């Protein structure tokens, strides 16, 4: 049964892996995502073996993770694969022999502590930040690991207290046939190895001593003192009452398949769960990060598989330079650890919610490409490379940036939309509201000095529609929305030549920037409305 389940699990796992690879390749055939693998092995090595990036990001989180990592690796190679590895490396290896018995329990203990740490962080996060939806991600692997560890410890415990297993072992590994010998051995094992026997046997000094000698002859070669299996020993001492019941029903016989089936479940779910990070993170870390040169020479390549290497750790958002933007606007898609999720879903799913995509486009627009998130990402994902290519992808999907959106919307079309909402909002307006107060621009005498010093007018040629002083005039005519949609407002360099030179000291540049703000907000609303329409269809 073990063999069958193992091979089935392996088969399913490999099939799953191939399926995921196939899906990644398929997604990569569009847009700027190229399949060229440009490998950078040194950072991949350090990040895989030592989780170096996580270490630099947060010592505490690294420590907790390293507990799980080291324990797990030990258990995989020296417990699960002991037949191929441990037995071959060490002549005298036995699972029940020290130091292996101790190390196995210790490794399991480390994993338990680590996983508890994982859960604790999530619980604390849910208290501090209740609407953080990524708290629930990655719970399945943690719980599965805990179950595997739990079942493993339980199995060991049951085996410790098991009378039937004891009798089987005596049958297989000793030639004791005398009842008294057996009893003496039993006494010894009851006292020193925590086996629970149905029948009470009288313990005497000589019997114990005899049992010890028998143990030395037949058992000691493979069985170290039980106290090194400290977890299981502790559990065993608690099982006095149910011991006989468990022994009678051979709990060990059904715990064992539970234990290995759970382990195989880990294997099968590897390509589809958080477990995949074991392969994805080395892969992502090995990818060459895009530099300025790559973008200048249009040689950008980002492998779609790297999107899935994200473990939702949230460290990227903790160092995000535009976190304050999120505090004001509340758009979660500004934060990298939400953005990557949306981007990943966008790659995986054919039709994502238009509202979500719109939010993603708006949120990503705020990114200043400071590279902090990429520097810190413990998974080694080229986050900034993704943020830089996202606008193009979104544009192709019908979600352009505001500049392009306004450029492609006729002034008249913008004029026709009524924005009474904007008037109502003025009550809460915290801006300077220069465009709403006549005295800001009423002194304009149309001298055209601002126009004459404006580089956009000078170099823009026919691409430019209005000049700065014409914008002032549009305001005087009450045509604020028209003014806000002009090329001038959107091409403005904010160089402040106009404002510095205005003989009437009108805040020309501040007014144009304010118009751009208004235009951005109007455009955002138009886009959200458009996205909602798309979603309804």
């Amino acid at each position: 049964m073990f063999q069958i389940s193992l091979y089935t699990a392996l088969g399913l796992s490999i099939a799953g892996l191939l399926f995921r690879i196939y899906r990644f390749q398929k997604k990569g055939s569009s847009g700027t995502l190229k399949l060229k693998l440009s490998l950078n092995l040194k950072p991949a090595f350090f990040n895989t073996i030592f989780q170096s990036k996580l270490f630099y990001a947060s010592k505490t989180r690294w420590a907790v993770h390293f507990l799980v990592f080291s324990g797990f690796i030990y258990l995989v190679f020296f417990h699960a694969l002991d037949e191929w590895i441990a037995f071959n490396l060490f002549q005298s290896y036995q699972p029940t022999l020290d130091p292996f018995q101790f190390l196995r329990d210790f490794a399991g203990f480390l994993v338990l502590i680590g996983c508890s740490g994982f859960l604790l962080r999530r619980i604390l996060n849910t208290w501090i930040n209740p609407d953080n939806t990524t708290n629930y991600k990655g719970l399945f692997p943690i719980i599965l690991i805990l179950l595997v560890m739990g079942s493993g410890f339980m199995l060991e415990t049951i085996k410790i207290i098991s009378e039937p297993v004891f009798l089987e072992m005596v049958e297989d590994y000793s030639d004791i046939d005398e009842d008294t010998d057996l009893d003496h051995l039993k006494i010894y094992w009851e006292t020193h190895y925590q086996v629970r026997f149905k029948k009470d046997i009288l313990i005497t000094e000589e019997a114990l001593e005899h049992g010890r000698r028998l143990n030395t002859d037949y058992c000691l070669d493979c069985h170290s003192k039980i106290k090194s299996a400290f977890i299981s020993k502790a559990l065993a001492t608690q099982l006095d009452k149910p011991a006989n019941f468990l022994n009678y029903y051979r709990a060990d016989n059904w715990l064992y398949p539970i234990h290995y089936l759970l382990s195989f479940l880990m294997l099968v779910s590897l390509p589809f769960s958080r477990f995949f990070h074991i392969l994805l993170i080395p892969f992502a870390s090995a990818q060459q990060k895009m530099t300025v040169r790559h973008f200048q020479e249009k040689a950008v390549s980002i492998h779609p598989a790297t999107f899935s290497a994200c473990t939702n750790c949230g460290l990227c958002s903790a160092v995000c330079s535009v976190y304050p933007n999120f505090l004001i606007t509340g758009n979660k898609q500004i934060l990298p650890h939400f953005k990557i999720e949306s981007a990943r879903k966008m790659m995986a799913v054919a039709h994502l919610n238009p509202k979500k995509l719109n939010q993603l486009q708006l949120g990503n627009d705020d990114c200043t490409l400071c590279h902090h998130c990429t520097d810190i990402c413990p998974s080694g994902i080229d986050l900034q490379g993704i943020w830089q290519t996202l606008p193009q992808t979104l544009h192709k999907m019908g979600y352009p940036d505001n500049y392009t959106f306004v450029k492609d919307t006729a002034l008249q079309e913008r004029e026709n939309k009524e924005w009474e909402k904007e008037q109502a909002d003025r009550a809460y307006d915290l801006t300077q509201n220069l465009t709403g107060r006549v005295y800001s621009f009423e002194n304009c005498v149309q001298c055209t000095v601002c126009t004459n010093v404006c580089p956009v007018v000078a170099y823009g040629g026919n691409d430019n529609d209005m000049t700065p002083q014409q914008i002032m005039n549009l305001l005087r005519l009450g045509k604020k929305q028209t003014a806000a949609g002009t090329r001038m407002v959107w091409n403005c360099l904010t160089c402040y030549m106009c404002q510095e030179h205005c003989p009437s000291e009108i805040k020309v540049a501040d007014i144009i920037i304010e118009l751009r703000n208004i235009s951005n907000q109007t455009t955002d609303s138009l886009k959200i409305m458009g996205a909602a329409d798309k979603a309804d269809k």
Partner: protein
Amino acid sequence: MKLAYFPGCKINFYLKDYDTSFQSLMEKLGVDLIQLPFNCCGYPARSTNFEVSVFSAIRNFALARKYDLDIITPCKCCFGQLKYAAYQWHENKKLKQKMECLLADENIFWDGKTKITHLLSFLYNDIGVLELKKKIDHKLPEKKIVTQYGCHALRPFTITGFDNPHAPRIFEELINITGFKTVEWSKSTECCGNPIYETNKSLSLKILNSKLTAALEAGADHICTACTHCQIQYNELSFQKECQKHKITPVLFTQILGAALGIKKEKLI
């Protein structure tokens, strides 16, 4: 002397040598640069959301205030933006109230007392040209150089108070002590074009390319910048190629001053 170092978002990835040379220069001048977890200055958000841009800046002030430090920055856009936000803080009472609430959520506050200075104004006002001249270790050859002042420090004067906005001089005075000789050209106070590089590349490059003709006209060997965005613009690939053809090199002020002060080359790139 301790100052909080405000690098700005772009310098880390796009102009690492400005970061390095700036820090080396400050070290040489005996300034202790303290790194704080600053966020974006808010300049990019000026176009999209006024509140976001002011709050981003104010939050940085509050962080510096926590450690009782004034702020220095090598980027002129950051400088201009932080100055602008400081103005909004004392002018716009309703906005100030809202910002104070948001800051209080993080247990930080600002009382308007943090000063913000740019590399050039620090060198000119706090250290002084004469003092700096004394420290020149290795005078550079007398090459001709023109200055790209950068808009956001110069203008609006009523916000930044950086220098005479029409006829600025502090950059020239600082460069001339290094051995390089500044010459006049018509583009000193004109924008480099970087603010619209992402949205309207052709116009941005048109503005940039006009600099080359003017620099050639002036007979310059170098164009000097002291702003992250200006230098990034001058590093634009096609412009660089043109510059190489005509043997003109855009340089960072920190690198030439650093070289003149005797800082080793490795610490300036």
